[in-house]
Protein backbone atom coordinates (compact mmCIF):
# COMPACT_ATOMS: atom_id res chain seq x y z
CA UNK A 1 0.00 0.00 0.00
CA UNK A 2 1.31 3.40 -0.86
CA UNK A 3 1.59 5.79 2.05
CA UNK A 4 0.72 8.47 -0.43
CA UNK A 5 -2.62 6.81 -1.28
CA UNK A 6 -3.50 6.40 2.37
CA UNK A 7 -2.75 10.05 3.04
CA UNK A 8 -4.92 11.04 0.07
CA UNK A 9 -7.82 9.04 1.50
CA UNK A 10 -7.16 10.55 4.92
CA UNK A 11 -7.30 13.98 3.36
CA UNK A 12 -10.71 13.18 1.86
CA UNK A 13 -11.94 11.88 5.20
CA UNK A 14 -10.80 15.06 6.92
CA UNK A 15 -11.93 17.61 4.39
CA UNK A 16 -15.06 16.13 2.75
CA UNK A 17 -16.43 13.12 4.58
CA UNK A 18 -16.27 13.98 8.25
CA UNK A 19 -17.55 17.54 7.82
CA UNK A 20 -20.61 16.13 6.02
CA UNK A 21 -21.51 13.41 8.51
CA UNK A 22 -20.79 15.65 11.47
CA UNK A 23 -24.24 17.08 10.81
CA UNK A 24 -25.63 13.79 12.16
CA UNK A 25 -23.14 13.54 15.01
CA UNK A 26 -21.09 10.96 13.16
CA UNK A 27 -17.50 10.47 12.13
CA UNK A 28 -15.34 8.12 10.13
CA UNK A 29 -11.90 6.85 11.04
CA UNK A 30 -9.58 5.59 8.32
CA UNK A 31 -8.01 2.33 9.47
CA UNK A 32 -6.04 1.27 6.43
CA UNK A 33 -5.76 1.17 2.66
CA UNK A 34 -4.65 -2.24 1.44
CA UNK A 35 -4.68 -3.60 -2.13
CA UNK A 36 -6.85 -0.69 -3.31
CA UNK A 37 -9.42 -1.37 -0.60
CA UNK A 38 -10.19 1.26 2.03
CA UNK A 39 -11.02 0.06 5.54
CA UNK A 40 -13.08 2.45 7.62
CA UNK A 41 -14.71 2.53 10.98
CA UNK A 42 -17.74 4.66 11.74
CA UNK A 43 -18.54 6.27 15.06
CA UNK A 44 -20.98 8.59 16.83
CA UNK A 45 -24.32 8.92 15.08
CA UNK A 46 -23.17 6.64 12.24
CA UNK A 47 -22.44 3.67 14.51
CA UNK A 48 -25.57 1.53 14.41
CA UNK A 49 -27.43 4.05 12.24
CA UNK A 50 -30.13 2.60 9.99
CA UNK A 51 -28.80 4.68 7.09
CA UNK A 52 -25.08 3.97 7.63
CA UNK A 53 -24.93 1.47 4.75
CA UNK A 54 -26.45 3.99 2.36
CA UNK A 55 -24.05 6.69 3.51
CA UNK A 56 -21.12 4.32 3.07
CA UNK A 57 -22.00 2.87 -0.34
CA UNK A 58 -23.76 5.73 -2.11
CA UNK A 59 -21.95 8.57 -0.35
CA UNK A 60 -18.50 7.81 1.05
CA UNK A 61 -17.45 5.07 -1.40
CA UNK A 62 -18.73 7.05 -4.32
CA UNK A 63 -16.84 10.17 -3.22
CA UNK A 64 -13.57 8.31 -2.61
CA UNK A 65 -13.74 6.43 -5.92
CA UNK A 66 -14.52 9.62 -7.77
CA UNK A 67 -11.50 11.41 -6.33
CA UNK A 68 -9.21 8.36 -6.28
CA UNK A 69 -10.14 6.00 -9.14
CA UNK A 70 -7.44 3.53 -8.06
CA UNK A 71 -9.61 2.64 -5.05
CA UNK A 72 -11.85 -0.35 -5.84
CA UNK A 73 -13.84 -0.78 -2.66
CA UNK A 74 -14.57 0.77 0.70
CA UNK A 75 -15.27 -1.62 3.56
CA UNK A 76 -16.91 -0.80 6.86
CA UNK A 77 -15.40 -2.63 9.84
CA UNK A 78 -17.64 -0.97 12.42
CA UNK A 79 -19.28 -2.99 15.17
CA UNK A 80 -22.64 -1.35 14.59
CA UNK A 81 -24.23 -3.33 17.41
CA UNK A 82 -21.98 -1.47 19.84
CA UNK A 83 -23.24 1.95 18.81
CA UNK A 84 -25.10 3.71 21.59
CA UNK A 85 -26.35 6.83 19.85
CA UNK A 86 -27.28 6.01 16.24
CA UNK A 87 -28.86 8.81 14.22
CA UNK A 88 -31.58 6.54 12.83
CA UNK A 89 -32.59 3.35 14.62
CA UNK A 90 -33.71 0.33 12.62
CA UNK A 91 -37.21 -0.82 13.42
CA UNK A 92 -39.56 -3.42 12.15
CA UNK A 93 -40.54 -3.17 8.52
Amino acid at each position, binding site marked *: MSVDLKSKVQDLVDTSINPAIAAHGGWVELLDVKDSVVYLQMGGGCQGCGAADITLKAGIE*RLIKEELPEITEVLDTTDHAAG*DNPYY*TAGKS
Partner: protein
Amino acid sequence: MERALLLLPTTTYRTQAFLDAAGALGVEIVCASERPNVFEERAPDRLLTLDFDDPDAAAEGVRRFAETSPIDAVVGVDDRTTVVAAAIAERLGLPANPVAAAAAARNKLEMRRRLAAAGVPVPRFEPVSLDDDLAPIARAATYPCVLKPLALSASRGVIRADTPAEFVAAVERIARILAGAGDTSRTLLAEEFVPGAEVALEGLLVGGALQTLALFDKPDPLDGPFFEETIYVTPSRLPAVVQAELATVTARAAAALGLREGPVHAELRVGPRGPRVIEVAARSIGGLCSRALRFGTGMTLEELILRHALGRKIESYERERRPAGVMMLPIPRAGRLRAVTGIEAARAVPGIEEIVITTHRGQELVPLPEGWQYLGFVFARADTPEAVEQALRAAHARLDVEIV
Protein backbone atom coordinates in the same frame (compact mmCIF):
# COMPACT_ATOMS: atom_id res chain seq x y z
CA MET B 1 -24.24 -0.97 -16.06
CA GLU B 2 -27.81 -1.59 -14.93
CA ARG B 3 -29.18 0.83 -12.35
CA ALA B 4 -31.69 -0.09 -9.68
CA LEU B 5 -33.59 2.35 -7.50
CA LEU B 6 -33.91 1.05 -3.95
CA LEU B 7 -36.52 2.63 -1.71
CA LEU B 8 -34.87 2.48 1.70
CA PRO B 9 -36.62 4.02 4.70
CA THR B 10 -34.08 5.27 7.22
CA THR B 11 -35.46 2.86 9.83
CA THR B 12 -35.58 -0.29 7.72
CA TYR B 13 -33.60 -3.39 8.65
CA ARG B 14 -33.34 -4.31 4.98
CA THR B 15 -30.71 -1.86 3.68
CA GLN B 16 -27.56 -3.92 4.06
CA ALA B 17 -29.06 -7.05 2.50
CA PHE B 18 -30.21 -5.18 -0.62
CA LEU B 19 -26.97 -3.19 -0.98
CA ASP B 20 -24.96 -6.41 -0.65
CA ALA B 21 -27.17 -8.06 -3.27
CA ALA B 22 -26.68 -5.14 -5.66
CA GLY B 23 -22.93 -5.37 -5.12
CA ALA B 24 -22.93 -9.12 -5.79
CA LEU B 25 -24.88 -8.64 -9.01
CA GLY B 26 -22.77 -5.71 -10.20
CA VAL B 27 -25.76 -3.38 -10.24
CA GLU B 28 -25.36 0.35 -9.69
CA ILE B 29 -27.75 1.54 -7.04
CA VAL B 30 -29.66 4.71 -6.51
CA CYS B 31 -30.81 4.99 -2.89
CA ALA B 32 -33.98 6.86 -2.03
CA SER B 33 -34.97 7.60 1.54
CA GLU B 34 -37.63 9.74 3.13
CA ARG B 35 -34.99 12.03 4.63
CA PRO B 36 -32.02 13.59 2.85
CA ASN B 37 -28.67 11.84 3.11
CA VAL B 38 -25.75 14.03 4.12
CA PHE B 39 -24.05 13.25 0.78
CA GLU B 40 -27.05 13.94 -1.44
CA GLU B 41 -25.61 17.16 -2.84
CA ARG B 42 -22.31 15.44 -3.63
CA ALA B 43 -23.93 12.42 -5.27
CA PRO B 44 -27.20 13.65 -6.77
CA ASP B 45 -27.32 10.78 -9.28
CA ARG B 46 -27.07 8.17 -6.51
CA LEU B 47 -29.06 9.62 -3.61
CA LEU B 48 -32.63 10.85 -3.63
CA THR B 49 -35.13 12.06 -1.08
CA LEU B 50 -38.73 10.98 -1.72
CA ASP B 51 -41.95 11.35 0.21
CA PHE B 52 -42.92 7.69 0.55
CA ASP B 53 -46.38 8.75 1.73
CA ASP B 54 -47.08 10.65 -1.50
CA PRO B 55 -46.67 8.04 -4.27
CA ASP B 56 -47.74 10.40 -7.05
CA ALA B 57 -45.24 13.11 -6.14
CA ALA B 58 -42.50 10.51 -5.62
CA ALA B 59 -43.25 8.95 -9.01
CA GLU B 60 -43.06 12.33 -10.71
CA GLY B 61 -39.79 13.13 -8.90
CA VAL B 62 -38.25 9.87 -10.09
CA ARG B 63 -39.55 10.37 -13.63
CA ARG B 64 -37.71 13.69 -13.81
CA PHE B 65 -34.63 12.16 -12.17
CA ALA B 66 -34.63 9.28 -14.67
CA GLU B 67 -34.54 11.67 -17.63
CA THR B 68 -30.86 12.24 -16.88
CA SER B 69 -30.10 9.20 -14.71
CA PRO B 70 -31.92 6.22 -16.20
CA ILE B 71 -33.41 3.57 -13.90
CA ASP B 72 -33.80 -0.09 -14.92
CA ALA B 73 -35.63 -1.39 -11.86
CA VAL B 74 -37.42 -0.15 -8.76
CA VAL B 75 -37.50 -2.13 -5.53
CA GLY B 76 -39.34 -1.13 -2.38
CA VAL B 77 -37.62 -3.01 0.39
CA ASP B 78 -40.37 -3.13 2.98
CA ASP B 79 -44.01 -2.51 3.79
CA ARG B 80 -43.83 1.25 3.79
CA THR B 81 -42.53 1.43 0.23
CA THR B 82 -44.67 -1.11 -1.65
CA VAL B 83 -47.23 1.37 -2.95
CA VAL B 84 -44.74 4.08 -3.83
CA ALA B 85 -42.55 1.51 -5.61
CA ALA B 86 -45.54 0.44 -7.70
CA ALA B 87 -46.34 4.07 -8.54
CA ILE B 88 -42.76 4.82 -9.58
CA ALA B 89 -42.49 1.66 -11.69
CA GLU B 90 -45.76 2.46 -13.41
CA ARG B 91 -44.57 6.00 -14.22
CA LEU B 92 -41.29 4.65 -15.63
CA GLY B 93 -43.04 1.89 -17.58
CA LEU B 94 -41.32 -0.89 -15.66
CA PRO B 95 -43.07 -4.19 -14.88
CA ALA B 96 -44.51 -4.10 -11.37
CA ASN B 97 -47.66 -4.56 -9.35
CA PRO B 98 -50.57 -2.26 -10.22
CA VAL B 99 -50.73 0.59 -7.71
CA ALA B 100 -54.26 -0.36 -6.66
CA ALA B 101 -53.16 -3.93 -5.93
CA ALA B 102 -50.20 -2.80 -3.83
CA ALA B 103 -52.47 -0.40 -1.95
CA ALA B 104 -55.06 -3.11 -1.31
CA ALA B 105 -52.37 -5.38 0.11
CA ARG B 106 -51.40 -2.64 2.57
CA ASN B 107 -54.90 -2.17 3.91
CA LYS B 108 -56.14 -5.16 5.90
CA LEU B 109 -59.82 -4.33 5.42
CA GLU B 110 -59.55 -3.80 1.67
CA MET B 111 -57.48 -6.96 1.45
CA ARG B 112 -60.09 -9.00 3.34
CA ARG B 113 -62.88 -7.61 1.16
CA ARG B 114 -61.09 -8.45 -2.08
CA LEU B 115 -60.12 -11.91 -0.92
CA ALA B 116 -63.59 -12.72 0.39
CA ALA B 117 -65.18 -11.48 -2.83
CA ALA B 118 -62.92 -13.81 -4.79
CA GLY B 119 -63.79 -16.78 -2.57
CA VAL B 120 -60.35 -16.97 -0.95
CA PRO B 121 -60.73 -18.34 2.59
CA VAL B 122 -60.21 -15.58 5.17
CA PRO B 123 -61.36 -15.19 8.78
CA ARG B 124 -64.82 -13.65 9.15
CA PHE B 125 -64.31 -9.91 9.57
CA GLU B 126 -66.05 -6.62 10.27
CA PRO B 127 -64.79 -3.05 10.18
CA VAL B 128 -65.01 -1.17 13.48
CA SER B 129 -65.22 2.61 13.49
CA LEU B 130 -63.48 4.43 16.33
CA ASP B 131 -66.25 7.01 16.10
CA ASP B 132 -69.06 4.56 16.88
CA ASP B 133 -70.45 3.56 20.27
CA LEU B 134 -68.33 0.51 21.01
CA ALA B 135 -70.51 -1.18 23.64
CA PRO B 136 -73.25 -2.48 21.31
CA ILE B 137 -70.66 -3.50 18.68
CA ALA B 138 -68.74 -5.43 21.34
CA ARG B 139 -71.93 -7.15 22.57
CA ALA B 140 -72.76 -8.26 19.03
CA ALA B 141 -69.26 -9.56 18.23
CA THR B 142 -68.39 -13.26 18.08
CA TYR B 143 -65.65 -14.45 20.44
CA PRO B 144 -62.77 -15.00 20.51
CA CYS B 145 -61.88 -12.32 18.01
CA VAL B 146 -58.82 -10.32 17.00
CA LEU B 147 -58.72 -6.54 16.72
CA LYS B 148 -56.10 -4.99 14.48
CA PRO B 149 -55.18 -1.71 12.79
CA LEU B 150 -55.58 -1.59 9.02
CA ALA B 151 -52.05 -0.57 8.13
CA LEU B 152 -49.49 -1.17 10.88
CA SER B 153 -47.28 -4.21 10.38
CA ALA B 154 -45.33 -6.76 12.43
CA SER B 155 -48.23 -7.53 14.79
CA ARG B 156 -48.16 -3.99 16.16
CA GLY B 157 -51.53 -3.20 17.69
CA VAL B 158 -52.95 -6.70 17.13
CA ILE B 159 -54.93 -7.81 20.20
CA ARG B 160 -57.18 -10.76 20.96
CA ALA B 161 -60.44 -10.21 22.81
CA ASP B 162 -62.48 -12.95 24.49
CA THR B 163 -65.22 -10.79 25.98
CA PRO B 164 -67.04 -7.53 25.20
CA ALA B 165 -65.04 -5.77 27.92
CA GLU B 166 -61.77 -6.95 26.36
CA PHE B 167 -63.08 -5.87 22.95
CA VAL B 168 -63.66 -2.31 24.11
CA ALA B 169 -60.33 -2.19 25.98
CA ALA B 170 -58.48 -3.50 22.91
CA VAL B 171 -60.07 -0.95 20.59
CA GLU B 172 -59.21 1.89 22.96
CA ARG B 173 -55.64 0.64 23.25
CA ILE B 174 -55.26 0.35 19.49
CA ALA B 175 -56.60 3.89 19.10
CA ARG B 176 -53.81 5.11 21.37
CA ILE B 177 -51.23 3.11 19.39
CA LEU B 178 -52.50 4.62 16.14
CA ALA B 179 -52.30 8.11 17.59
CA GLY B 180 -48.73 7.44 18.76
CA ALA B 181 -47.80 6.15 15.32
CA GLY B 182 -49.27 9.21 13.60
CA ASP B 183 -51.86 7.02 11.86
CA THR B 184 -55.04 9.02 11.35
CA SER B 185 -57.21 6.04 10.40
CA ARG B 186 -60.54 5.88 12.27
CA THR B 187 -61.29 2.29 11.29
CA LEU B 188 -60.05 -1.00 12.70
CA LEU B 189 -60.60 -4.59 11.72
CA ALA B 190 -62.33 -7.10 13.97
CA GLU B 191 -61.92 -10.65 12.77
CA GLU B 192 -62.56 -14.20 13.85
CA PHE B 193 -59.71 -15.78 15.81
CA VAL B 194 -58.67 -18.85 13.84
CA PRO B 195 -57.13 -21.48 16.12
CA GLY B 196 -54.32 -23.60 14.78
CA ALA B 197 -50.80 -23.44 13.44
CA GLU B 198 -49.59 -20.32 11.70
CA VAL B 199 -47.17 -20.34 8.78
CA ALA B 200 -45.46 -17.76 6.61
CA LEU B 201 -45.03 -18.27 2.90
CA GLU B 202 -42.28 -16.43 1.09
CA GLY B 203 -42.87 -16.21 -2.63
CA LEU B 204 -42.02 -14.38 -5.81
CA LEU B 205 -44.58 -13.41 -8.40
CA VAL B 206 -43.35 -13.58 -11.98
CA GLY B 207 -45.87 -12.46 -14.56
CA GLY B 208 -48.68 -13.28 -12.13
CA ALA B 209 -47.43 -16.81 -11.38
CA LEU B 210 -46.40 -17.51 -7.81
CA GLN B 211 -43.09 -19.25 -7.17
CA THR B 212 -43.05 -20.55 -3.60
CA LEU B 213 -39.60 -19.84 -2.21
CA ALA B 214 -40.03 -21.07 1.35
CA LEU B 215 -42.74 -22.09 3.77
CA PHE B 216 -41.92 -21.30 7.39
CA ASP B 217 -43.53 -22.97 10.39
CA LYS B 218 -44.02 -20.75 13.43
CA PRO B 219 -43.70 -23.30 16.23
CA ASP B 220 -44.53 -20.90 19.06
CA PRO B 221 -48.32 -20.79 19.43
CA LEU B 222 -49.81 -17.46 18.41
CA ASP B 223 -52.95 -17.47 20.54
CA GLY B 224 -52.79 -13.94 21.94
CA PRO B 225 -53.57 -11.73 23.69
CA PHE B 226 -50.73 -10.28 21.59
CA PHE B 227 -49.16 -11.92 18.57
CA GLU B 228 -45.42 -11.65 18.91
CA GLU B 229 -43.60 -13.58 16.23
CA THR B 230 -40.50 -15.39 17.39
CA ILE B 231 -39.32 -18.57 15.66
CA TYR B 232 -39.53 -19.29 11.93
CA VAL B 233 -38.31 -22.67 10.66
CA THR B 234 -38.18 -23.97 7.11
CA PRO B 235 -38.92 -26.42 5.57
CA SER B 236 -42.34 -26.79 7.10
CA ARG B 237 -43.17 -29.95 9.01
CA LEU B 238 -46.78 -29.86 7.83
CA PRO B 239 -47.93 -32.70 5.56
CA ALA B 240 -47.07 -32.18 1.89
CA VAL B 241 -50.74 -32.00 0.94
CA VAL B 242 -51.32 -29.15 3.40
CA GLN B 243 -48.24 -27.32 2.16
CA ALA B 244 -49.50 -27.60 -1.40
CA GLU B 245 -52.89 -26.28 -0.31
CA LEU B 246 -51.23 -23.30 1.42
CA ALA B 247 -49.32 -22.45 -1.76
CA THR B 248 -52.47 -22.72 -3.86
CA VAL B 249 -54.45 -20.49 -1.51
CA THR B 250 -51.65 -17.91 -1.43
CA ALA B 251 -51.50 -17.85 -5.23
CA ARG B 252 -55.27 -17.32 -5.36
CA ALA B 253 -54.98 -14.54 -2.80
CA ALA B 254 -52.26 -12.74 -4.75
CA ALA B 255 -54.32 -13.03 -7.92
CA ALA B 256 -57.44 -11.76 -6.15
CA LEU B 257 -55.54 -8.69 -5.00
CA GLY B 258 -54.18 -8.12 -8.50
CA LEU B 259 -50.53 -8.60 -7.50
CA ARG B 260 -48.39 -9.70 -10.44
CA GLU B 261 -44.70 -9.02 -9.90
CA GLY B 262 -42.16 -9.23 -7.12
CA PRO B 263 -41.98 -10.64 -3.63
CA VAL B 264 -44.91 -11.67 -1.47
CA HIS B 265 -44.91 -12.47 2.20
CA ALA B 266 -48.08 -14.29 3.20
CA GLU B 267 -49.26 -15.34 6.63
CA LEU B 268 -51.81 -18.09 6.93
CA ARG B 269 -53.48 -20.12 9.65
CA VAL B 270 -54.09 -23.81 9.27
CA GLY B 271 -57.48 -23.85 10.94
CA PRO B 272 -59.93 -26.66 11.66
CA ARG B 273 -61.73 -25.85 8.40
CA GLY B 274 -58.59 -25.55 6.30
CA PRO B 275 -56.19 -22.70 5.52
CA ARG B 276 -57.20 -19.11 6.18
CA VAL B 277 -55.25 -16.22 4.69
CA ILE B 278 -54.33 -13.73 7.40
CA GLU B 279 -52.48 -11.43 5.07
CA VAL B 280 -50.54 -11.19 1.84
CA ALA B 281 -48.00 -8.38 1.73
CA ALA B 282 -46.34 -7.27 -1.52
CA ARG B 283 -42.89 -7.38 0.00
CA SER B 284 -40.28 -9.80 1.22
CA ILE B 285 -39.89 -11.09 4.76
CA GLY B 286 -39.10 -8.37 7.31
CA GLY B 287 -36.31 -7.69 9.76
CA LEU B 288 -33.10 -9.60 9.11
CA CYS B 289 -35.03 -12.87 8.67
CA SER B 290 -34.06 -13.29 5.01
CA ARG B 291 -30.59 -14.35 6.19
CA ALA B 292 -32.18 -17.72 6.90
CA LEU B 293 -32.76 -18.22 3.17
CA ARG B 294 -30.38 -19.22 0.38
CA PHE B 295 -31.27 -20.29 -3.12
CA GLY B 296 -29.64 -22.17 -5.95
CA THR B 297 -25.91 -21.96 -5.48
CA GLY B 298 -26.02 -19.59 -2.54
CA MET B 299 -28.08 -16.70 -3.86
CA THR B 300 -29.72 -14.50 -1.25
CA LEU B 301 -33.40 -13.59 -1.31
CA GLU B 302 -32.47 -10.01 -2.16
CA GLU B 303 -30.38 -11.11 -5.13
CA LEU B 304 -33.34 -13.08 -6.36
CA ILE B 305 -35.65 -10.08 -5.97
CA LEU B 306 -33.21 -7.75 -7.74
CA ARG B 307 -32.65 -10.25 -10.55
CA HIS B 308 -36.39 -10.48 -11.09
CA ALA B 309 -36.84 -6.69 -10.98
CA LEU B 310 -34.10 -6.27 -13.59
CA GLY B 311 -35.63 -8.92 -15.83
CA ARG B 312 -32.60 -11.17 -15.50
CA LYS B 313 -32.87 -14.91 -15.88
CA ILE B 314 -33.31 -16.86 -12.65
CA GLU B 315 -31.90 -20.36 -12.99
CA SER B 316 -33.46 -21.80 -9.87
CA TYR B 317 -35.98 -20.83 -7.22
CA GLU B 318 -34.97 -23.86 -5.12
CA ARG B 319 -34.10 -23.15 -1.54
CA GLU B 320 -31.07 -24.97 -0.18
CA ARG B 321 -31.99 -28.40 1.19
CA ARG B 322 -30.63 -27.84 4.70
CA PRO B 323 -33.27 -26.82 7.25
CA ALA B 324 -32.84 -23.28 8.54
CA GLY B 325 -34.51 -20.93 10.95
CA VAL B 326 -34.48 -17.58 12.64
CA MET B 327 -35.66 -16.35 15.99
CA MET B 328 -36.76 -12.77 16.31
CA LEU B 329 -35.70 -12.00 19.85
CA PRO B 330 -38.69 -10.68 21.75
CA ILE B 331 -38.52 -7.59 23.91
CA PRO B 332 -39.27 -9.00 27.36
CA ARG B 333 -40.42 -5.80 29.01
CA ALA B 334 -40.41 -2.04 28.70
CA GLY B 335 -37.36 -0.04 29.74
CA ARG B 336 -33.94 0.92 28.48
CA LEU B 337 -31.49 -1.69 27.28
CA ARG B 338 -28.42 -1.87 29.47
CA ALA B 339 -26.79 -4.99 28.02
CA VAL B 340 -27.30 -8.31 26.33
CA THR B 341 -24.94 -10.89 27.78
CA GLY B 342 -24.38 -14.58 27.11
CA ILE B 343 -23.93 -14.02 23.37
CA GLU B 344 -20.79 -16.14 23.12
CA ALA B 345 -22.44 -18.98 25.04
CA ALA B 346 -25.46 -18.74 22.76
CA ARG B 347 -23.22 -18.80 19.68
CA ALA B 348 -21.63 -22.00 20.99
CA VAL B 349 -24.92 -23.89 20.72
CA PRO B 350 -24.55 -26.44 17.90
CA GLY B 351 -26.37 -25.26 14.80
CA ILE B 352 -26.28 -21.58 15.68
CA GLU B 353 -24.77 -19.58 12.82
CA GLU B 354 -25.20 -15.99 13.80
CA ILE B 355 -26.56 -13.75 16.53
CA VAL B 356 -27.24 -10.12 15.74
CA ILE B 357 -28.37 -7.69 18.41
CA THR B 358 -30.04 -4.82 16.58
CA THR B 359 -30.95 -2.61 19.51
CA HIS B 360 -28.31 -0.39 21.04
CA ARG B 361 -27.32 0.28 24.60
CA GLY B 362 -29.60 2.83 26.17
CA GLN B 363 -32.32 2.33 23.57
CA GLU B 364 -35.88 2.52 24.83
CA LEU B 365 -37.53 -0.87 24.46
CA VAL B 366 -41.26 -1.08 23.91
CA PRO B 367 -42.88 -4.52 23.90
CA LEU B 368 -45.94 -5.46 21.88
CA PRO B 369 -48.58 -4.44 21.19
CA GLU B 370 -47.23 -0.86 21.30
CA GLY B 371 -43.68 -1.67 20.16
CA TRP B 372 -42.31 -2.13 16.69
CA GLN B 373 -38.74 -3.28 17.15
CA TYR B 374 -36.90 -6.54 17.75
CA LEU B 375 -34.13 -6.99 20.27
CA GLY B 376 -32.19 -8.89 17.63
CA PHE B 377 -32.07 -12.08 15.59
CA VAL B 378 -30.64 -15.59 16.01
CA PHE B 379 -30.00 -17.80 12.98
CA ALA B 380 -29.55 -21.56 12.87
CA ARG B 381 -29.06 -24.39 10.39
CA ALA B 382 -29.16 -28.08 11.22
CA ASP B 383 -30.01 -31.49 9.81
CA THR B 384 -33.69 -31.36 10.74
CA PRO B 385 -36.28 -28.64 11.37
CA GLU B 386 -36.64 -29.99 14.92
CA ALA B 387 -32.90 -29.51 15.53
CA VAL B 388 -33.09 -25.95 14.14
CA GLU B 389 -35.93 -25.11 16.52
CA GLN B 390 -34.10 -26.65 19.47
CA ALA B 391 -30.91 -24.74 18.66
CA LEU B 392 -32.80 -21.45 18.50
CA ARG B 393 -34.52 -22.11 21.82
CA ALA B 394 -31.27 -23.18 23.49
CA ALA B 395 -29.44 -20.10 22.23
CA HIS B 396 -32.23 -17.83 23.40
CA ALA B 397 -32.15 -19.42 26.84
CA ARG B 398 -28.45 -18.49 27.16
CA LEU B 399 -29.04 -14.81 26.46
CA ASP B 400 -29.56 -12.49 29.37
CA VAL B 401 -31.19 -9.16 28.64
CA GLU B 402 -30.59 -6.42 31.16
CA ILE B 403 -33.24 -3.70 31.06
CA VAL B 404 -33.43 -0.77 33.44
